[in-house]
């Protein structure tokens, strides 16, 4: 059914005409201004098809450019300056023929009404002068019109009032003004004491002094900062969660603290802008300046598995561009993402030049999901709290000193050590040897160097065996050493693989007497030691011993530079009087291709039997199998299989489960295993060069049995949590290879075990084994490690020093973990290239249209020397060249005090935005703001000292009739307080408000289960844990903001969800708002505490009622009002007296302490009166 031309619409416009003409046009008689009168009409009705957007342009006609509009098109001219009949536009807007009529019906744009046609007529007759868009020409300071008023603001406004013939409302009475100043500057009403103190002072400029005090003296200054920061959080879309999918918690509150400090120190607005846009790029940026760059990280991010990185990187950059443009430039830049802007002179290409400033942050599009709800999503930085930075440097110096103290070697201790080692080594020594032959498989050549080593050359095949024959002299030898040498000059890595790593599968050795070429006898190795092995992946050196599979020993060349040393102990001695030959085949057959040795050297030697007994066990990594569920009764007796295992056999299955290597299970820490009632086995391979009894310290959750080679060697049936050193056990380890199995019997709850071997008193623990090696082989690092190992065992003084060092290091790591982090901007080294995206889609870049960073030409040019990054952009924004920033900033300040801006579309100064109601005043304020050094407080003083600000807010019927929209500000506009101030005010009046500036967000009262209903099961912000004590009564600016379920009482009073930049809140009026004031636990408790406070003060009912009213409405109640209150109090007293248990339950709402010294009935009655006063307009409306 076709839609009837809504004639109603025309009628409304008709009545609108009567009014508008009276206000806007008549400003200065008959002259029609393009900017004020014509452009709004053309922009809205014509530019959609005859404007900037070349793609959609009809009839190739532009009406936004003078030359185009007046061009002669074969006889026809859209606009013929001075002559109506030659202006085609005039005919078209009157044409009755639907095909001719402009704007056409399918454009959904309404026809021009009489008033608009009148304006077009007079404009064309006056020569159809175009003017550049008012907002794109930098403001010049107009001279205020002559007038009696002293404040320039009043001079502009009074001129307008006079022109309209309007008589403004009288000044408001002083108590109204004091309340208005307190609310506008601190967000909290004056207490009766503050009001009285002000009214008592006699200075003529006491209001100016009050404003000054509220901004510069504590405690008001902090409140002022908190009040000014609140709207900024809306614009910056601050929240405590990510907003998409998991809606994971994030840490960005340090940026909020930065905003608070900025307002508290009256930071100049240009610095406020530059540091937030480009704080991280400032030369020598301070911690604070980097924190400020968090402004651009407030946007929503995704962690939804399956999301595509590039798509969201585009969305993040687009969000930053849109927010920066609308907050600082007042431009709807994001409209040009898919096509040229329909109204403003911003082409799609120019949009992507602006966008390019923001798309090179070092960040992923899809973030990983981690459990920590306080995570700062990368890129982030640490923000040392008060004193933490100093503490960190102090700890660092103490660590450095302790480490140095550890290093100095006092000479006699060194001597003592050498003697001890020499004595301990006894007859151990290395014998002379020389390489007889060296060859390798798969085409690798081994060049024998004169230092006795062989260097691998030629191709580096996936796998290769090196075979070296070594002639030696010596008898009774049992040691074979293999050095994997790294060359500091060539990457200093032991392996030939790309990452410098190498893996030796095993070393197969055989010996023969020098004079019997074929009498080879194979040597079996029973023990070994290495200075480093790659434990992630389980490449322990013991893998090279017989029967240990063929994983091999990984040298970890990619993790640690330098050479490696391997010492092998033969089971039986070898060697002959006339010398012998050792043939060693170094097998390198790991699955990892090309992990072969670069350069190797072999040595043989003897070891004193006494030293063998002092060698530590050679150990493999921990493997786990389980959990096996078991009924509680037989858990200890039940033998599932691992108890009897002799070796880790990964193909073996125990009730369908197999051994799994766990790199993260290490000695000396509690290793957590599966929770619940179950059995878990932890096992590792050990090799003993000689029989010995080892002492171990155990812990387990709950019971434990230890088996060695199938034999039960220790047991403790107990229910406990795993802690270090709970049991001590002595275990006899015979010589040879054994499997040590740790059976953990968990009877419920968490599971875990702890294992630490106590080195025997004279054992060569840890790196002490390196003493075996000659100093030449050892190298500096190993020497130091050897010295440390010896001192740990033999020098208590040294051990104490080291423990001291460890303690201080522990303190530092704890401090760093506690130090808050925040999300910041960090430019990538290589800047991301930007192409115009067809239809704004991430996957359709137009390769022909590569974009360099820059700003739309219509806004003027950046200076030549400005850098092509956010810093250059920020500097341009605050420079004189920029036509918009000062105006937009001044307009936002104006809106904060007069409820609507001088440009009422605060977020849109473009062609579709509103023409300023008082253009000269706006420009004057803009220039004043810049020339005062962007001094925000100066502007606030200026505004709050103006007569317009101090006018009464009571409109008159006559004024409403003549100027219903209060354009002339003949009366001061009333406005309901924002959500946060309504709650803060209730807490402040009740005396509950906890004033603590800054810090992490808090969780006050909220109805049950709101988060669970929307959150995903794994989300770390699924459960709302209400805060304790103080957290319930902090200012609402600090309330935790979960984007998927924002605080309901705030949403009800029009707070935005903070998912996108919101410049201006709507101001609605709904029943739910009344319900919040009546029934929200926060307000009921506040009412009861206010009632208590009132009852604590002296005075009869009427005096107390008057005082309570004065706290809320900041004025004395009129007689009639007091009678009403008294009647209500009486009614409630009588009602609760009849049902005292009702009174009792009412006064118990909330956590705040319920005093015993007031009767419940009395307190309940007063609570209801207080609750009423919290709801009246006199309290929740700023008037």
């Amino acid at each position, binding site marked *: 059914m076709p839609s009837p031309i809504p004639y*109603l619409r025309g009628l409304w416009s008709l009545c609108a005409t009567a009014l508008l003409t009276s206000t806007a046009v008549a400003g200065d008689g008959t002259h029609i201004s393009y900017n004020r009168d014509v452009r709004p009409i053309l922009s809205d009705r014509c530019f959609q098809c005859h404007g900037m957007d070349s793609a959609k342009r009809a009839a190739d006609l532009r009406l936004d450019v003078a030359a185009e509009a007046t061009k002669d098109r074969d006889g026809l001219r859209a606009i013929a300056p001075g002559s109506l009949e030659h202006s085609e536009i005039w005919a078209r807007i009157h044409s009755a023929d639907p095909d001719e009529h402009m704007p056409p019906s399918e454009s959904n744009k309404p026809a021009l009404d009489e008033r608009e046609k009148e304006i077009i007529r007079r404009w064309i007759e006056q020569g159809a002068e175009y003017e550049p868009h008012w907002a794109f020409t930098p403001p010049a300071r107009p001279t205020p019109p002559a007038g009696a008023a002293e404040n320039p603001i009043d001079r502009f406004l009074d001129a307008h009032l006079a022109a309209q013939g309007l008589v403004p409302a009288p000044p408001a009475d002083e108590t109204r003004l004091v309340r208005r100043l307190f609310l506008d500057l601190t967000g909290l009403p004056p207490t009766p004491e503050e009001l009285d103190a002000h009214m008592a002072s006699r200075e003529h400029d006491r209001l100016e002094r009050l404003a000054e005090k509220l901004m510069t003296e504590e405690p008001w200054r902090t409140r002022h900062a908190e009040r000014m920061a609140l709207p900024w959080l809306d614009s910056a879309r601050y929240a405590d969660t990510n907003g998409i999918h998991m809606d994971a918690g994030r840490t960005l509150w340090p940026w909020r603290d930065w905003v608070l400090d900025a307002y508290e120190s009256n930071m100049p607005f240009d610095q406020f802008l530059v540091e937030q846009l480009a704080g991280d790029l400032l030369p020598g940026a301070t911690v604070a300046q980097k924190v400020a760059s968090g402004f651009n990280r407030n946007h929503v991010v995704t962690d*939804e598995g*399956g999301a*595509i990185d590039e798509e969201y990187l585009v969305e993040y950059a687009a969000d930053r561009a849109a927010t920066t443009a609308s907050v600082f430039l007042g431009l709807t830049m994001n409209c040009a993402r898919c096509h040229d802007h329909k109204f403003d002179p911003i082409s799609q290409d120019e949009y992507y030049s602006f966008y390019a400033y923001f798309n090179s942050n070092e960040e992923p599009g899809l973030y990983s999901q981690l459990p920590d709800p306080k995570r700062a999503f990368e890129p982030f930085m640490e923000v040392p709290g008060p004193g933490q930075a100093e503490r960190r440097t102090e700890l660092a110096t103490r660590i450095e000193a302790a480490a140095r103290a550890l290093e100095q070697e006092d000479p006699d201790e060194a001597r003592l050590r050498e003697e001890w080692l020499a004595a301990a080594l006894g007859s151990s020594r290395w014998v002379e040897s020389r390489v007889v032959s060296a060859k390798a498989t798969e085409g690798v050549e081994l060049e024998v160097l004169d230092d006795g080593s062989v260097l691998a050359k030629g191709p580096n095949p996936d796998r290769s065996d090196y075979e070296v024959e070594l002639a030696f002299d010596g008898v009774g030898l049992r040691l074979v050493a293999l050095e994997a040498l790294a060359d500091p000059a060539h990457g200093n890595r032991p392996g030939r693989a790309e990452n410098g790593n190498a893996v030796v599968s095993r070393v197969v050795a055989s010996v023969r007497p020098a004079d019997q070429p074929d009498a080879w006898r194979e040597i079996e190795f029973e023990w070994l030691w290495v200075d480093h092995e790659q434990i992630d992946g389980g490449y322990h050196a013991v893998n090279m011993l017989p029967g240990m599979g063929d994983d091999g020993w990984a040298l970890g060349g990619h993790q640690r530079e330098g050479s490696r040393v391997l010492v092998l102990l033969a089971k039986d001695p070898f060697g002959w009087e006339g010398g012998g030959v050792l043939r060693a085949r170094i097998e390198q057959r790991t699955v990892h291709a090309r992990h072969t040795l670069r350069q190797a050297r072999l040595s043989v030697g003897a070891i004193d039997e006494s030293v063998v007994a002092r060698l530590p066990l050679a150990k493999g990594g921990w493997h786990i199998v389980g959990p096996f569920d078991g009924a509680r009764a037989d858990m200890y007796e039940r033998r599932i299989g691992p108890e009897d295992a002799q070796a880790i056999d990964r193909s073996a299955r125990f009730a369908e489960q197999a051994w799994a290597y766990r790199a993260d299970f290490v000695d000396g820490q509690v290793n957590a295993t599966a929770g619940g009632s179950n059995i878990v086995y932890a096992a590792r391979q050990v090799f003993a060069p000689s029989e010995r009894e080892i002492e171990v310290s155990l812990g387990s959750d709950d019971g434990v049995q230890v088996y060695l080679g199938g034999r039960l060697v220790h047991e403790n049936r107990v229910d406990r949590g795993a802690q270090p050193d709970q049991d001590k056990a002595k275990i006899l380890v015979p010589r040879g290879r054994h499997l040590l199995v740790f059976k953990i019997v968990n009877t419920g709850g968490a599971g875990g075990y702890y294992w630490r071997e106590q080195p025997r008193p004279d054992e060569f623990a840890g790196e002490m084994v390196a003493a075996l090696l000659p100093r030449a082989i050892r190298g500096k690092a190993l020497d130091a490690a050897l010295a440390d190992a010896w001192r740990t065992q033999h020098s208590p003084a040294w051990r104490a020093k080291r423990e001291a060092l460890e303690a201080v290091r522990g303190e530092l790591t704890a401090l760093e973990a506690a130090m808050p982090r925040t999300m910041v901007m960090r430019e990538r080294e290589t800047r991301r290239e930007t192409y115009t995206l067809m239809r704004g889609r991430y996957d359709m870049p137009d390769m022909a249209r590569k974009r360099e960073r820059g700003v739309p030409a219509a806004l003027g040019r950046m200076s030549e020397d400005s850098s092509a990054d956010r810093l250059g952009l920020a500097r341009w924004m605050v420079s004189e060249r920029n036509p918009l920033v000062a105006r937009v900033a001044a307009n936002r300040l104006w809106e904060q005090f007069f409820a*609507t801006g001088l440009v009422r579309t605060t977020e849109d100064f473009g062609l579709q935005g509103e023409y300023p109601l008082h253009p000269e005043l706006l420009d004057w304020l803009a220039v004043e703001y810049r020339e005062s050094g962007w001094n925000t407080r100066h502007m606030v003083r200026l505004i709050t000292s103006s007569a317009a600000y101090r006018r009464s807010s009571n409109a008159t019927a006559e004024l409403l009739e003549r100027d219903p929209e209060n354009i002339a500000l003949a*009366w001061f506009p009333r406005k309901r307080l924002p959500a946060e101030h309504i709650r803060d005010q209730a807490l402040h009046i009740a005396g509950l408000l906890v004033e603590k500036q800054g810090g992490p967000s808090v969780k006050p009262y909220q109805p049950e289960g709101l988060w669970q209903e929307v959150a995903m099961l794994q989300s770390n912000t699924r459960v709302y844990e209400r805060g304790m004590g103080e957290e319930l009564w902090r200012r609402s600016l600090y309330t935790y903001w979960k984007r998927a*379920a924002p605080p309901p009482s705030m*949403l009800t009073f*029009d707070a935005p969800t903070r998912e996108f930049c919101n410049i201006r809140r709507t101001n609605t009026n709904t029943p739910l708002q009344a319900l919040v004031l009546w029934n929200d636990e926060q307000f009921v408790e506040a009412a009861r505490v206010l009632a208590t406070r009132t009852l604590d003060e002296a005075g009869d009912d009427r005096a107390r009622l008057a005082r309570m009213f004065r706290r809320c409405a900041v004025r004395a109640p009129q007689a009639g009002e007091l009678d009403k209150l008294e009647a209500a109090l009486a009614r*409630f007293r009588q009602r609760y007296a009849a049902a005292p248990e009702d009174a009792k339950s009412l006064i118990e709402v909330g956590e705040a302490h319920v005093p015993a010294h007031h009767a419940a009935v009395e307190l309940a009655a007063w609570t209801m009166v207080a609750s009423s006063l919290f709801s009246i307009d006199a309290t929740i409306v700023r008037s």
Partner: protein
Amino acid sequence: MGSFHSDPLRAAVHEHELLLTRRRLFAAGARTFAAGVGMAALGSLLGRDALAAGAAAPQRHWRPKAKRVIYLHMEGGPSHLDLWDYKPELRQRYNQDLPESIRKGQRLTTMTSGQGRFPVAPSLFTFSRYANQQDGVWISELMPHTGSAANELCFLHSMHTDAINHEPAITFCQTGHQQPGRPSLGAWASYGLGSANANLPTFCVLITQGIGNMQALSARFWGSGFLPSEHQGCRLRSSGDPVLYLKDPAGVSRTDRRAMLDLVNDFNEREAQASLDGETRARIAQAEMAYRMQMSVPELADLSDEDDETFALYGEEARKPGTFAANCLLARRLSERGVRFVQLYMRGWDQHGNLPAEMRAQSKAVDQPQAALIKDLRRRGLLDETLVVWGGEFGRTVYSQGSLSETDYGRDHHPRCFTMWCAGGGIKPGIALGKTDDYGYNIVERPIEVHDLHATMLSLMGFDHEKLVYPFQGRDYRLTDVAGRVIAEIVA
């Protein structure tokens, strides 16, 4: 309230809030700017229904066929192949690889892009053909009750969307745009139609926790976006207060609240006289409505006036608050009382694996109640005025995600085709529209965009979807953005 002039036209001018030029004075809507400047905001005083004086309230374009909407959103994307899109021939293609000609390199979520194979997984549920006004419609054994209402249902087999992931896909089908920031369907309905029952919220939201893999919900799915925040959805909750902060604190009776209200209204009346502030007087009306809502909402939620026959129809689950059955019954009771837009969510349809078991449980929870809702509305003479829409945010892939066996498989997200159905409110009953190919992978006949469905819904509510606009940042925003065509074939 301001006195009425004798001459109606004059009264209109005075009473009427003035709309200046066609471009609203500023984006917050003409009504609210009046609040700022103290003008008697007649719009807020007299309520915002369609003919509200508030010039910002849009004009309906023609007589509505649907006075009310009930939207049943199945969050997670139920598999169209296991419920509605019958593909008998697929049985012969069990475990074959999906031909490339069918897949045409579709943009995959990274969950399955890593898969080596794409084996076809036909539905292991048997389908039956239920008679309707055409030659019958095939429905799976999971939905027998819904099948029994086939005479009323209009199936749309060829829906498609752009988003491959839940968050953007749900945001798209609830707000017409993939990224946050736009008003939801219900908010547009509230903005356009205003309230038809002064004692109840205009746009209600009911959430049911599912059994299967549940995806996230967010306040933006029922948010007001740039519309005034009074149009946001009001969540009716199954535990605690049905509407947040509705119940008076312990120890406060109805008469206490009345007494408090009289006191507050008295003060506000005085304030309004002094300041001529329309908003202050409007708050008196709002507080009165809050007082009435404290009775009307509990009366709504009190099912004692429903007889056993109702619980036989909806199923015994309907007695347990928060279940889908209970929420369907509540939806009928809300519509019966003139609530304009009721939005139900059933979570848990994201079956990447373990599909057969989870879908049996999910379908069992929704089948009987949704069919009961249709039949109950029809027999009460409400169905032809109440538009019911059922659907998820996308479909699921024909190839299995995860190990495929004869008794178990999973399906990944599939935006290129899925099935929704609707009934009542001016929709042709008992028909089906659109077809997908043999694999249920691409659309071969009559593709329908989500914007088309939105355009149709608005049209049934009496609006030309291109003319129901809201000016924000210089642009006249629409629910259907720059797309949307009314699906003429299904409008009666």
